[in-house]
Each structure stands twice: as structure tokens, then as C-alpha cells.
């Protein structure tokens, strides 16, 4: 039957974009956070270049505030598939005086990642950084192109984007400029989970239910890590939770859940009434928080 379902169509589009990157750029890297979106993006890259290896390195911008499991998963994945994993540390940017640590309750290194990322792009002479950003995540992302041009300062100019038609992607640039490419732009959170289920893709155990020490802040459950400061009113409790996104531990909310299979996760997402970014305190800072960060060069 000459008919494919929505996941296969999205898959085909993403594979097309990944191959365009390999064809149009000299030194592309794939940003890898250890979260489900970058895992799916990497899986698509394996498909795009099979039976050859993925022809680019992965780059992880490490805030140092990770779930331990994420790092283990990252290193296993690189070894299993024989890809180069480059890790750049936000701590190094802080030590060099390139970035200044936020202090106090709610301090996060999430914004500082931009400095480390732009420095890495310059140092490694990266001409294209692929990210797992999706347009459904957030309003500012809804206008992002597949091929998104960045000037020599790494900045995004949302008002002056190149029109993108059919499947013709214009990756032409001047020296010093680079591109951000988002192969899974058209996927929603639900698509990602359905695809993980359909393809049986391995993901970190953090996405499944587990017992964890958590506390409540601004109506969200946050995972506790030793370097975090609690307010007097906040109390640590152990609960059955799972992560809906995996990012910097300081700004990633967890969901109270008993889901321990992919099927159950998909069912749970289907019934959920809050967006996944609703669990991220970095977006709550202001209504235009994401747009401001993106203009400066954030993922």
C-alpha cells in the first residue's frame, strides 16, 4: 500500500534534513543532552546514514548539574554506536570568567549554557549545530526554521529569517556564521513518545517511574540534588516520579507517576493537561523568556 502513517512521514522528513546537513556543511555537530528528543534525533541519524556510521560528532554542553544516569547513558550510547562525544563544561566557562554563576534559591546554570555553547562552536569551528528543538514546545520556537541562520555573534534574528519552501534548504553562509538545524521541528511530544514506542528506542530509566527525593516549588515537583538550596518552607519527600524532560537538574520538574512501560507513558501523555515545558522553571521567568534566550544563541 502506498500510504505511510504520520510517524513514518515525520521520520522521512527528518532523515531528509539530516542528510542535507551532511551534504551542505563541512563540520556539523549534533547537540546531545541525553534527553528523549536528542536520543530520537540520534536514532534518526543512524537511519539516515545506515549502513555507514553517523558522520558527525555529538556535543554535550554539560552544566555539571545532571542526573547521574544521564551521563552514564550518554557515554554508553557513544561507545555502542562508535560516535565521538565531545563534552564542554559550563564550569570551565565559569572558571575562565566567561560566565557568572547565578546565586541564591532557584539558581540555575541553564542560561549559562549559551556562553559555553557559543565558545565551543567557535573553538571547534562548527558550521552547523543540530538541535532537538521542536516547534510545539514553545511559542518562540513555532517560527523557527529547519535551517536557522546565525550571524557571527551566534545571534538569531527572528524577524529576518529566510523563507523555507518545499524541501529546498538554503544553508549558504559567510565565514564565521553558522546554522542551527532542527531535524525534528515538526514533531510533537506525543509523536516523539509514539515513535520511541514504535521503534523500541532505548531511553534512560529516569523516564520511567522510580523513587526519588523531591520537593515542591512554584507548584512544581523538583528533583533534589545535594548542591541545591531549599527554602525553609520546603520539605524533602520521597515519591514515585518520572521525568518528562531531562535537562539541567535545577530547572527540570518531575511528574508524579507510576508509569513503568512506554505504553503507559504514551497513555499518560495523552491524558496530561500541562505542557512539558510547563515543568521547566527556565521558561517561567517571563512570557518572552525563550525568545530572549534564543536570540542570544541558546539551543
Amino acid at each position, binding site marked *: 500500500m502506498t500510504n505511510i502513517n504520520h510517524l513514518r512521514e515525520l521520520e522521512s522528513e527528518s532523515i531528509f534534513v539530516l542528510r542535507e546537513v551532511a551534504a551542505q556543511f563541512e563540520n556539523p555537530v549534533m547537540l546531545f543532552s541525553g534527553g528523549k528528543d536528542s536520543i530520537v534525533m540520534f536514532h534518526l541519524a543512524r537511519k539516515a546514514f545506515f549502513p555507514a556510521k553517523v558522520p558527525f560528532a555529538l556535543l554535550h554542553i554539560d552544566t555539571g548539574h545532571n542526573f547521574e544516569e544521564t551521563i552514564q547513558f550518554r557515554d554508553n550510547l557513544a561507545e555502542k554506536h562508535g560516535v565521538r562525544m565531545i563534552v564542554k563544561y559550563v564550569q570551565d566557562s565559569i572558571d575562565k570568567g566567561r560566565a557568572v554563576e547565578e546565586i541564591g534559591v532557584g539558581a540555575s546554570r541553564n542560561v549559562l549554557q549559551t556562553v559555553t555553547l557559543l565558545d565551543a562552536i567557535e573553538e571547534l569551528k562548527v558550521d552547523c549545530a543540530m538541535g532537538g528543538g521542536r516547534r510545539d514546545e514553545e511559542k518562540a520556537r513555532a517560527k523557527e526554521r529547519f535551517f536557522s541562520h546565525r550571524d557571527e555573534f551566534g545571534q538569531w534574528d527572528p524577524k529576518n529569517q529566510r523563507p523555507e519552501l518545499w524541501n529546498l534548504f538554503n544553508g549558504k553562509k559567510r565565514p564565521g556564521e553558522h546554522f542551527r538545524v532542527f531535524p525534528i521541528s515538526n514533531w510533537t511530544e506525543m509523536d516523539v513518545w509514539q515513535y520511541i514506542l514504535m521503534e523500541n528506542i532505548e531511553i534512560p530509566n529516569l523516564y520511567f517511574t522510580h523513587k526519588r527525593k523531591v520537593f515542591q516549588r512554584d507548584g512544581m515537583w523538583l528533583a533534589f540534588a545535594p548542591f541545591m538550596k531549599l527554602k525553609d518552607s520546603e520539605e524533602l519527600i520521597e515519591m514515585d516520579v518520572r521525568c518528562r524532560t531531562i535537562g539541567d537538574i535545577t530547572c527540570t520538574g518531575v511528574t508524579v507517576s507510576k508509569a513503568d512501560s512506554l505504553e503507559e507513558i504514551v497513555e499518560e501523555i495523552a491524558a496530561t493537561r500541562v505542557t512539558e515545558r*510547563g515543568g521547566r522553571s527556565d521558561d517561567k521567568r517571563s512570557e518572552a523568556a525563550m525568545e530572549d534566550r534564543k536570540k542570544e544563541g541558546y539551543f
Partner: protein
Amino acid sequence: MANTTKGYLDMQLLRFTTAGSVDDGKSTLIGRLLYDSKSIFEDQMEAIELSSKKKGEEHVNLALLTDGLRAEREQGITIDVAYRYFATPKRKFIIADTPGHIQYTRNMVTGASTANLAIVLIDARNGVVEQTLRHAYIASLLQIPHIVVCVNKMDLVDYDEEKYHEIRNHFMEFAPKLDVKDIRFVPISALKGDNVVDRSKNMDWYKGSTLMHILENIYIAGDQNYVDARFPVQYVIRPMTDEYHDYRGYAGRIDGGIFKVGDKVTALPSGLESKIKSIDTLNGTLKEAFAPQSVTMTLEDNIDISRGNMIVKSNNVPENGQDIKAMISWFNERPLAINGKYSFKHTSSDLRCMIKDVSFKMDINSLERNYDDKTVKMNDIARVEIRTTKPIFYDSYRLNRYTGSFILIDEGTNETVGAGMII
């Protein structure tokens, strides 16, 4: 969000655009589709409730859901293409949300380029206006196979049947000038919800489908070209490992037709013939593949093929030439330069071209041709003659949207300045 683990494997993808003049209710309609299909989350709803209150609006303004960037929020207008997503148990939808102002033809063209269907909005109080014509023309120019004309704000004309028929007839008067196979009409109220997702109780006289029913059920599988097999080679895969020592795979997305293992194929431009040996994917080999699948093919014979070449079936080859006639849509503030040179991107090939002549400009408000004024400015649509540096392999855009389209890139600024549809 009822697409659960059971039914999702049968869901299809439908991409559509929305066009309408300012204030026809486009944002409200999209907000309504998202809201009634339960695609809006609590935190999104809270955010727009807060914004509505700040602005002193009495109802929650569903239109706020679709306003993306800060500048737009401040000016209260949509200025670029934004993509929205929602799903029902039957289909996943991608909306290319484009603004209706005259200066933004380029956004509409962009959004239309990948759409299966276009929604054209009409304010029932105003009827068919100049801009309606323009929106319908762009849908037709970009060969969107289906147009659904939504006559909106029916609540403001007392849900009047006669008014609806008047508008419908008026639209059908110029339909013969359009090149669209399928045009449908629905009377709606985006604000109140009539005939959007739920059938209207105020318009018993309307026996057709609701908008959502059309979106969920319209037959789109037949819109692909399954006859003319086209495979532009995007990338050559050479693993150079022991296991795949001599492997040479041609990777790309099928832009038309069906390819089967054993098919006799010709590589263009060399003209060398071979047979398909295998169609490979990470999940195993396939016996056949079709548009729009991304696959990797190997051939029986070792012939020289690289990015920019095209593999086709030997008994059905595309047109070939250096002199191209096309309709173009111009995007840049600097007008099109006659005799100017541009980069020319077509399928997976990158070459250069020269604009030889502008035959006419299209007045997209009256659909008249203008043979006198040949300055093609931003948002203009024109028929041009182009010469490429090397022969290209193409189909007319009417036959194939992917082998029949190209973009023009300014060689100085690298901006995408125009898009073309080969005649």
C-alpha cells in the same frame, strides 16, 4: 488528545494553511480548532487568560494562542509563518499559520508550498473581497490540491442561508480562473464554534460536513504522484568498513512514483542504465519504496552517481533543458534583476542561473496579466524565462511539486530571494 497507543499507527498526516484578511478570524479559528480538539494545555490556557486580562478583554482571547513572537504580541499582529500542531484520533495536523496582509505574500507562498489543503476565510459581512481572490490564487499557484472556503462570523449575519449562498456563488464565479481540483464551503462561527468541530444548531439548513470532519476525512493519499518515479540523489553512502567494503548506497527522498527492487533505472545526467539491487533501511530491506519515503538504494552496476544526480525509471524520464519558463514569487526588498545572476537550487542540485526575461507580472488582486511593468518587487508574482548554467532534469510543477520547484539565492547576501514553479 485521544491518540493513544492503539490507534496511532493508522494516523495520517495532513498539512494545511490558513489564509484570510486581517480580522477575518483566522487566529480565532485556529484557537478554536486547538481548543475543541483538546490540544490546549492548562498552563497555555492560564497564560492566555492572564494576557487577555492584562489587555482588558472580557473573553479569553483564543487568538493569543497563536501569536508567537514578542514584537507580534506587542503590535497584536502575526508577521511570519508559524507552525501549529494538533491531533485527533484520526490525523495529526500541521498548520502553517500565515498572515493575510498584502505585504506578506511571501509568507503565504512559503506556508502553501508544503500544504495538502488550504483554508480560505471570508468574513460573512464583507463577502468575497479582493484579498479572497489573492489567497485563492496563491493556493492554486502553489497547487494545493484542496481548498476549503470557510464563511466565518455567520453569527453576525443571523446565520442567514441566503447570505452564505450569495458568497458561495460569488466565489464560484472566479473559480474557473483557478487551477484547483477540489473546492468546498462551510459556514462557520469561529468565535461561537458553529460547524468548526461541533455541528451548528443555528444552521439546520447546512447539510454538509463540519470543518473538522473535512480535515479528518478528506482523501489525500491520491494527491501524491505515484506514476513518474523520481529519486534525486542527496548523499552517497560509503561505509568503508569490512562488512560493507564495496557498498555504495544512494540516499535520498523519493519525490514521485514507486521504485521496486529489480526495476530498470537510468541515472541522470549520465544516462547510464542499471537495475535496483536493493532498497536498504536500518529496519531491514524493502521490496519497494514510494514518495515521500527517505531510503537508500544500491544498483547492480557500479556507475558514477553523486549528489545532484537523479535516478528515474528508464521508461519514464523527466524533461531536460537549460531554458526554463516559470512562475516566480519574489521575496526580497531588492527587485529581481533582469540579466541578473542567482544561485539556483533545484532538487538536490545547486547551480547558477540568469534571468533572461520577465514575460508578465500577475496582478494578484484582479488576476490580470500585466505585460508593461516588468519590475518584479517584493511580494510580486511573475512569469519569467531563466537560463541555467547546466541542463536540469525537471517536471512541470503541476505534475510534481518537488521536481518542478526551485529557489533563487542572492549570491552576495545568501538570502533566499525568490521561489519558482516550472511551467
